[in-house]
């Protein structure tokens, strides 16, 4: 029954009071791998590019509104 409920919560994104159970999911970290570095750095680079473009195209940005 509890498993069923847990499964249901997992699938729908719904939040309910009895969905909490403890299980060891915090140990056993894998070593950091190169694709993780690529993912993180790539994401920061894309963010920076969108930030620069956004500051120019958004009329209410600090650049266009004059701070």
């Amino acid at each position, binding site marked *: 029954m509890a498993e069923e409920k847990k499964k249901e919560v997992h699938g729908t994104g719904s*939040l309910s009071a009895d969905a909490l159970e403890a299980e060891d999911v915090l140990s056993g970290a894998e070593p950091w791998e190169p694709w993780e570095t690529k993912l993180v750095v790539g994401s920061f680079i894309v963010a920076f590019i969108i930030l620069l473009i956004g*500051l120019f195209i*958004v009329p209410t*940005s600090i650049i266009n509104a004059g701070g």
Partner: protein
Amino acid sequence: MSQEKKGWTYGMLTQEDWWAVWIGGFFMILGLLSVWGIDLVGWITYPKIWVFKMPEGAVPKKIVPWYQAFYPLGAKYSLTAKKFWKSIGPIGGILITYVAFTIPLCIGAYFMRWNVRQFFLGWTVIFFLTYLCWFIGHHAFFAATTVHLKKSNFPDMFTLSLGGGASFILALIVGLIIGNFFKPLARFLSEAAKPEWYIKTAIVFLGVKVGYLPIKMATFSQKLGHKVAGLTFELFLAGAVATFVAYLIFWPGIYTISRKIFKLPRKTAAVLGSGISICGVSAAVATGGAVRAKPVVSIMVSALVVVYAVIELIILPWFFTYVWPGPEGALVAGPAMGLSVKTDGADAAAGELLDELMRAKIAKDTNGAVQWPEGIITVSAVVTKLWIDMFIGLWAFILALLWCYVVECRPGEKVPAIEVWHRFPKFVIGYFAAWIIYLTIFFGPGHAGAPEGMAILKAAKAGAVPVEKGMRKLFFMLTFLSLGIITDFKKLKEAQFGKMVWVYLIGLFFFIIPVACLISWLFHQGMELPNIAGMGIE
């Protein structure tokens, strides 16, 4: 990735997201009938600020005696049935409100396969408790601002000046007391304590608010209507860019903190990254599914999301109002809230509280010379959040691809594109539909506020106000109370996820919130709220 076949209609009768659309949409359509002179929403009963005894010389305008503390909104706003709605009185109004919501909500509960009897009983208690909190929270000591006192000819007196925010806080406190000190009652109510469902429905109602704002302003001044329409578009654009930038910084940042500093496993770090960065519960659950984390990871993160959302809800509106950026940066604070608070419910509620506090403060600071229309600051918080919500589907899909093809490379496994649709927060559809419908009325038959369109705009207003004001706030109240009821601090302590608590704490307060403030400040500098002082707008 689940390999079971799910068509695009999957979940339409069984998921909270869709039921928020159906219920929100149903009442929005009822409200729209006012355009044809049919008023079917005037029953929703709304509170006023009250006192036990009116002081001598006071007039019952903004502050009324306790027995007038509630009124059906139709009694004030209806064009065709004002007398009828007045005749039902506050008790009749509350009872009709109860019946009008109980029926569709129970139908929703039935289709979502909840225990309908238990839901009905729990809902009944939650509904009336909500109205009780709404009543107490509107006592003048908590809610009245300088403007209210002045307009009702009250003598100068000390009040907390919290506006409608007092009721939200009270509902949350009452919920937390029930959830933590009256456990049997909390269990009894748990089937109906559904903060995510209530808030998603409230967000559909909020769509009516966003679309209706130009109409509201135009009924007072055509120029003001145009200004507010422009402002909502500015918020939409700036919110979109800010969200993209913020999210692309948030997720990898939290992922790195979790992996490098706290040495968490990849899947746990990925779920935490989404939970703290995007929109909490839904994102944690979507990412958990995408990377195939153990269900408990998503659930633990979801629990943390709720607890920290409550903490943010208590701290941030006050911080943004009284410390930084203050009322002069009200439209920087709103989006910063949207980027920082990780559940739709808490964000919209925190935005609502911020709205009340900011408007109360600016009115107090300027002695009433500056007054802002209600709801725009809330909208600024929610728009950013909605963009983040829309990002969930995309990000969950990217993570699903990444995990499927890079991390856990399984030959021959395919990720169907429809998965993005399944992960898309559906209530957003209701929100945008409501917004677009009312904007269409404004720019179409309403002639953008020109005199020839005024009759239809006034008719639209009569049906929109009960939805965007009464129903929206009622569902916010329900959200707060429910959020408190399901938050069990002891349960969280017992789960021994201290490490996760620390990652969340550090990630949120030392990374997410400062970055959110910076990005919001960069993109929302040039926004100004219109001053409506002296225009007779409430």
